[in-house]
C-alpha cells in the first residue's frame, strides 16, 4: 500500500536573496524529457500548476504571488497560465489571507496560500490555531478544510531578522494540523501534490535555503507516479525516508537539515563510521515505525534540526525514541539544534546553524567506548 519514497539531495551552501531571480528563470524553463537537474523551486511550481490543471477548485493566493510570482518565484507563471481568478495577490494582511482561505475551503475551494516568510505567518496564528486546526473537529467532520498553507521557513540564506525563523514546532504542537516538510526536489513535487489533495489542512514548510538546490528528477515520471498513487488510494503521508542507509548510528533530520545530515554521514563514512540518515518528511503524522526500526538497529541516535531545541519537534523525536527504543539504546540520544537564541544576523548565522562538524561531534559523544 505504501508508495515508493526515494530521496536524493545535494548539500548546498548559503545563497543570497538576490538569486531569487536565477530561480525564477530556472522555474520558467520548458520541461525536458527524462531525469534532468531540477530545482526545488521548479518542482513546487510544477506541483501547483499540475494541481490547478487537475482541479479547478485549486486556487493560489497570497502576497506578491501573482504578477511577481512570489518573492521566491515559486508561483511564477501561475497567473499567466490560469488567470487572475485562480492565482492572485491579496492585500497585505496574513490573518486576512488565512481567514479568507478558511471561508473558501468551507465553500468548495482548495486554497493553496503562501505566507511570504516564516515570521510573517505569525499575524495569522489565531486563524491557524483556532480555526484551521479545529474546523473539521468542531463540526464533527461536517466541514472539511482542504487548505495548504505554504511557509518558506528556516535560515541559511543570510536574511535579516524575522526572515529565517524555524516555526514548524508551533504548528506541530497544534492538534489538528498536518505538517509536511520536503527535503528533496522529488519530495517537493510529490508532497505538495499530496498536501493539495488532502482533505486536511496542511502546513507545508518549505526550507527556503533548498529552493535552489537541484536533483536529477523526471517530473513527468513523478506526475505519473502521483496519478497512480491517487488511483490506488495511496499516499506518502506519514512515511519517513531512509535517505542513506547505515548501521552504526541514526541521524534523524528533516527539511533544511537533511542535506547537512547527509554531508555528515558522508564525512563519517570516510572515518569508517556508517551512519543511517532518516528524512522525517511529514512531522505530523510522524513515522514512528521507520525511525524506531532504524534506532533499534543502530542503538544510537542524533536528532538534527535548525529550530531552537527547547520544546520543539526535535525534543519530541527524542522523547518518542526513548519511549519506543529504550532497551536498544547504547547511549543517550543527542540533539544538534539551533541554540535557544533569536535567529542571528547574517554574519553570525553560521555559528547558529547545525553544521557537519557539530553533528560529527555529537556522534562522537555517543559513548562508543562503552
Amino acid at each position, binding site marked *: 500500500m505504501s508508495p515508493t519514497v526515494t530521496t536524493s539531495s545535494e548539500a548546498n551552501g548559503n545563497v543570497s536573496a538576490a538569486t531569487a531571480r536565477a530561480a525564477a528563470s530556472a522555474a520558467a524553463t520548458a520541461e525536458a524529457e527524462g531525469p534532468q537537474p531540477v530545482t526545488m523551486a521548479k518542482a513546487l511550481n510544477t506541483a501547483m500548476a499540475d494541481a490547478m490543471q487537475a482541479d479547478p477548485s485549486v486556487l493560489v493566493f497570497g502576497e506578491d504571488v501573482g504578477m511577481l510570482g512570489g518573492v521566491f518565484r515559486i508561483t511564477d507563471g501561475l497567473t499567466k497560465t490560469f488567470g487572475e481568478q485562480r492565482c492572485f495577490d491579496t492585500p497585505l494582511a496574513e490573518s486576512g489571507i488565512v481567514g479568507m482561505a478558511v471561508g*473558501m475551503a468551507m465553500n468548495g475551494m482548495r486554497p493553496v496560500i503562501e505566507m511570504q516568510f516564516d515570521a510573517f505567518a505569525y499575524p495569522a496564528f489565531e486563524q491557524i490555531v483556532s480555526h484551521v486546526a479545529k474546523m*473539521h473537529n468542531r463540526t*464533527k467532520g*461536517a466541514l472539511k478544510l482542504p487548505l495548504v498553507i505554504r511557509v518558506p521557513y528556516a535560515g541559511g540564506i543570510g536574511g535579516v531578522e524575522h526572515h529565517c525563523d524555524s516555526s514548524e514546532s508551533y504548528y506541530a504542537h497544534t*492538534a489538528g494540523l498536518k505538517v509536511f516538510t520536503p527535503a528533496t526536489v522529488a519530495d517537493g513535487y510529490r508532497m505538495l501534490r499530496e498536501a493539495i489533495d488532502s482533505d486536511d489542512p496542511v502546513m507545508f514548510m518549505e526550507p527556503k535555503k533548498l529552493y535552489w538546490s537541484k536533483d536529477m528528477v523526471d517530473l513527468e515520471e513523478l506526475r505519473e507516479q502521483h496519478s497512480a498513487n491517487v488511483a490506488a488510494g495511496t499516499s506518502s503521508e506519514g512515511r519517513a525516508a531512509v535517505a542513506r542507509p547505515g548501521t552504526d548510528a541514526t541521524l534523524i533530520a528533516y527539511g533544511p537539515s537533511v542535506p547537512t545530515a547527509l554531508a555528515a554521514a558522508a564525512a563519517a563514512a570516510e572515518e569508517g563510521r556508517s551512519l543511517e540518515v532518516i528524512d522525517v518528511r511529514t512531522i505530523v503524522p*510522524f513515522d514512528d515505525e521507520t525511525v524506531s526500526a532504524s534506532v533499534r538497529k543502530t542503538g544510537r541516535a542524533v536528532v538534527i534540526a535548525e529550530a531552537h531545541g527547547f520544546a520543539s519537534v526535535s525534543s519530541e523525536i527524542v522523547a518518542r525514541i526513548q519511549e519506543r527504543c529504550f532497551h536498544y539504546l547504547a547511549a543517550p540520544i543527542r540533539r544538534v539544534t539551533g541554540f535557544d537564541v533569536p535567529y542571528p544576523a547574517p554574519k553570525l548565522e553560521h555559528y547558529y546553524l547545525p553544521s557537519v562538524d557539530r553533528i560529527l561531534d555529537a556522534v562522537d559523544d555517543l559513548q562508543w567506548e562503552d
Partner: protein
Amino acid sequence: MTISANHTAHDPGPQTVNADPVAEAVRKFGITVEDYMLPARHQIQMVDPGGRLKPDSEQGTEPGHEYPLPGAEELLAAYEQLVIGRRVNDQNSALVRQGRMAVYPSSHGQEACQVAAALCLSEGDWMFPTYRDSVAVMARGVDPVQTMTLFRGDWHSGYDPMKHRVGIQCTPLTTQLLHAVGVAHAAKLRGENTVVLAMCGDGATSEGDFHEALNFAAVFHLPVVFFVQNNKYAISVPLAHQSVAPSLAHKAVGYGMAGERVDGNDVVALLAVLDRAVKLARDGSGPLLVEANTYRMQAHTNADDATRYRQDSEVAEWLAKDPVSRMKTYLTGRGLLDDETDFRIAEKAEAIATRLRDGLGEDVPVDPQDLFRHVFASPTPQLLEQSAMLADELAREESSGEGAK
C-alpha cells in the same frame, strides 16, 4: 462641502469608486462619494419607541440613503420571530439557572437585530454569527436544540453549517468575518448569486481581523454585508472606551464601502436597511457596513455581574425602547395584528421553548472516542494509538467495576 474621491488630485480614483450603485447615487442625487459612503446624518428609525410610524421626513433618510417601508407580510413574519426570539432567550436563561446548560450569552433586547439578520437573507445566502446570535441562527432554520449544543457542552457545535448555510457560532472575536469573506469570494468566483451576512459586536470592531475582513471584502468587491450589533458594551467595557469615532458606521469610508446606522431596536428600520444592503450587495455594489444601535439588556453571560460596571437607570432607559413591545404596538395600531394571531404566535414560541426544555433536559450520552474521531479527515497513527489507549483505560475501569467518573 464636496470632496473628491481621488487618491490624489491627479490620479483617477480606483475602479470600484465608479462601480454602479455609487456612481448612480452620485449622479442621481448630486451627492459626493463620501456622502454615499458615510452614514446618513441620523440613524435610520421608522417606528419610534412608542410604536408609532415616524413621518418620512423624520426617519433619517437622505438622498442616496432612502429606505422604503417593508411589506406587511415581512413585518408580521418578523414579529413572529421577535416573539419566538424573546421566548428562546428567556427559556435558555432559565435553563442555565437550572444547571441544564453551562452558559448562555443572551440577546435579550437585541431580538430585532437577530430577526432582521435572518429574514433579510435568501435560502442560498450565508450567515456568520457570533456566540450571541443563537436567536438569529434559529430564525434561519437551524434546530434549536442543535443550536444549544455549544452551550450545553456536549460538543463545540451541534449543527451542520452546510445545511442552512450558517457558520458555527464563533467565539474568537471577528475571526468569522474573514470566513464570511472567503465564502463570498468562492461563490463569486463560481458566478453564484450568494450574499453573506457577517455579524459582530461593537467591541469586536477593535480587533485587527475586523479591519482585514472589511478591506478584503472591499478590494475583492464581494457581496458581504457586515452587520455590527452595537449593544454598547463589550463585557464591562463601554463603547466610549472602544471607539471615539463619530459612529462605527463611519469606518466604512476608510475601506471604500458604504456605511449606515440604524435603530437596532426597530425591526422595521432594520429590515428596510438590511434588505436594501443585501439587494445592493447581490446586485454588485460590493460590501456594506450596517451598524445597529441596540443594548445588551442582561449581563454578558450568566457568569458576568453587570452591576459592577453600569447603572440600573441606564438599563431602564433602554427598557422603554424594547423591540418586541414596540413592534406589537405598531402592528396592532396598523391593524396587522389581532389577539388571535398574537395568541397563535405565542403558542408557536411556547412550543419551541418546550422543545428546548425537553431537548436540553435529556442527558445525551457523550462518546469519549469522539475526541479522536473528527480531528482529521484521515487520522494519524498517533491518534489511533491514543484512541486505543483511552479505550483500553476505559475498558479496564469498566471491568474493575469503577466505571467512568
